[in-house]
């Protein structure tokens, strides 16, 4: 740092100069703290910024053997291929819809669950419930989808129960109209417990005197929940929501691939699953990189906009 600030020979404005001299003083004073910073910075440089160099393959006809430096430049060819695919609009629609389902159903579920846990009085009971809810998260996606497939089969448990009420036996996984529902239900079942951890943590830090004060003022359980609990964890909720928005176009391709069928493509085929099938034919790294770049840019815009809105509306935001 020192060499940089002193070796600048050209006249610089005083603001710039004073910044570096302040920084220099700062570094000198808090050597140990800055030393601690080195590893995280290295981590970001090596694993998050250096890979960005590889983004150029989105504009290339990338060849593994020739590498990034040797591959041919093709401009926006890969993007054109992606946008011109006859199924582009359908896969985009499915991606957006499945993501919306996730935001509407899968996002609030862990919050509700965490608040419910918070109301459980017995400490042991609470621990047991929580552990039971975390377990599905650790079950492999292959097993979960296998179970769902079995349950939805013509002789599966769903049909057995439905037939008690006179419904006709049918395979629900071959019915496009049910796919998004089944998929959303599956992800809720699998992830709600685990995702509630962060909200449980936020709830722990709520000052208990707030609750006491509220009950003295005559607030019942519901009122306490609405006026104390909810505002206390709102910053966490907003943060999580913005992070989720950042991944809006990245729906879990692997789960869908395990669950969908050609007959349910019309509601199940998302951008990532379609690109997966295109890539299977001929390792299309460039196309995948182009699509990833588009997803990333959309995510960045969403995060930025939602952060701005949130700062204005709720006064809590990521930055």
């Amino acid at each position: 740092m020192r060499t940089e600030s002193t070796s600048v020979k050209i006249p610089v404005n005083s603001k710039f100069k004073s910044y570096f001299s302040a920084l220099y003083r700062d570094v000198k004073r808090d050597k140990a703290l800055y030393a601690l910073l080195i590893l995280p910075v290295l981590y970001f440089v090596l694993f998050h910024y250096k890979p960005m160099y590889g983004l150029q393959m989105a504009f290339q006809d990338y060849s593994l053997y020739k590498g990034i430096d040797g591959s041919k430049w093709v401009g926006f060819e890969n993007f054109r291929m992606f946008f011109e695919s006859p199924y582009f609009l359908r896969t985009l629609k499915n991606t957006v819809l499945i993501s919306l389902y996730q935001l509407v159903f899968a996002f609030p579920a862990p919050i509700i669950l965490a608040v419910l846990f918070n109301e459980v009085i017995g400490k042991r009971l609470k621990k047991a419930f929580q552990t039971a809810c975390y377990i599905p998260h650790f079950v492999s996606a292959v097993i979960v989808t296998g179970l769902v497939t079995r349950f939805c089969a013509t002789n599966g448990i769903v049909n057995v129960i439905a037939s008690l009420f006179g419904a006709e036996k049918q395979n629900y996984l071959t019915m496009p109209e049910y796919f998004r529902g089944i998929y959303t239900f599956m992800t809720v079942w699998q992830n709600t417990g685990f995702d509630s951890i962060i909200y449980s943590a936020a709830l722990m830090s709520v000052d208990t005197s707030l609750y006491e004060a509220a009950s003295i003022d005559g607030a019942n359980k519901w009122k306490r929940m609405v006026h104390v609990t909810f505002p206390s964890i709102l910053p966490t909720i907003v943060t999580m929501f913005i992070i989720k928005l950042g991944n809006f176009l990245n729906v879990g391709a692997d789960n869908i691939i395990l669950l969908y069928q050609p007959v349910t493509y019309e509601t199940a085929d998302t951008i990532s699953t379609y690109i997966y099938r295109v890539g299977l034919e001929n390792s299309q790294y460039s196309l995948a990189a182009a699509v990833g770049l588009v997803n990333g840019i959309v995510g960045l815009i969403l995060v930025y906009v939602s952060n701005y809105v949130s700062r204005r509306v709720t006064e809590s935001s990521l930055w």
Partner: protein
Amino acid sequence: MKLTKKIISAALAATLMVVSFSGCSEKENTNVERTNDTPDLAYKISDKKITLDLFYTGTYGSAVDDEAGRLTNIYVKNVVPASTTDATNAYNVMLASGNIPDLVSYSITDIEKEAFEGAFVALDEYIDELAPNIKKFLDENPDKKASITSYDGHIYSIPLFEAGETAAGYYIRQDWLDKLGLKAPTTVDELYTVLKAFKEQDPNGNGIQDEIPFFQRSMNLMGIISRFDLKDGFYVDESSDSIVHGKYSEKYKMAIETISKWYKEGLIDPDIFTRGSNAREELLGNDIGGMTHDWFASTSRYNEQLKDKIEGFNFAPVAPPADINGKVWESSARMVGVRGYAVSADSEYIEEAIKYMDFWFSEPGLILQSYGVEGKHFNYVDGAPVFTDEYLSSTKSMNEAWASEGITLYRSSVQNFDAERQWMAPAALEGAKLYIDNGYCSKPQPQLSFSPDEKKVLSTKWTAVDTYMKEMEQKWILGKNDVVADWNEYIETCKSFGMEEILKIYNDAYTRYKEVKSK
């Protein structure tokens, strides 16, 4: 700053160590002595002992390669760690590292892609001079030569040529047929009668109509579709000598119309598209599956497995029902050869490597490839190689038992069906014999090679068409749409997605194939 530099270099070193596992060029390692090998060198290729680096994923045993080394003085050393499970990943890392081992065993189509960029040697330029056995084999089999020749006229990889004609066949519950007084179906109409009887006459005798007359693990119902004079995917139509696609013809409409009717009547597994690869265990084990179309070796196992559980269980191979034109034939076929050796363009030992590949086409090489080492894996009985009893009684499956000793690995060589026959269960053998003796089997389809530009068009356009075709097929079969009503729109949509262009690319490739073949 110094500290930072140190950390960076340490981190980089660690990363490099992980990345460059395939980059080891341990050619010095040749002086590792084996105790029990007295060099024989009957088929010596090189005066000095050479060890070639080999890229081989999957189960790899070195016994056979060591024996080959004893004979030729060329040894190979597999540089892929045995713990590798993801072959694609290992191959990609190997390519990206830029350090390509002397010999690479990988899929022909992938090798070709990198070969166009100069990673692998064009073998055809050396074969005439250095590889008399390979040359002889290719001259005698022009169709195989054409199948491995790339669009630019070069040969970059020589696969393990597959042998044996049989692939899949029809299996039916013979005990159910006997019980209902029926005969195995020989026509499409009889097939309908039999499946209908399975559905309605309760052959498993449990009082419920829970039988699933026809099921197929592969989910594509080719067992029935092929009876309408069709094959799966792109294939050569013999009458016009051009490439057509099975799902792009009037006959397919007829097939689907029939199948959707059968599906509605409950003759076809209602969960056909979701049941997955365990369909046989599930349906045969529960005594409800009636008939299927699947591979001989694996389907024949169920008689043995289920004989105690289900009384009289007999899942027997039967001849294919005749197609609508009255022809009896089986639609599945083996491939010409999909994976074998290619030689790195950077290798110091290109000529030796090609001579070594040629060794595997010579008489001793072929025996070594299919039967292993004499005295250890097989002995000569009446002049013919026969696997030893101890080896045959191995608890491993055939493929595992072989690969762990290095037999029938994906080298450049020729498979020997007799070796496979010695491992087959009697029931499987019976089925294979039925199909071979009566000449039901189809010939392997030619393997076509495309230029990089053609591949690009195929990978995008074909994905769209394929998506559409599969989606419509399932909708029709499940009765969500009607094939007759949709048909014109279906053909139009395929066209608008580029089906004609795709077929043209295939036919151009087929024309190139025919040119090489007739040369």
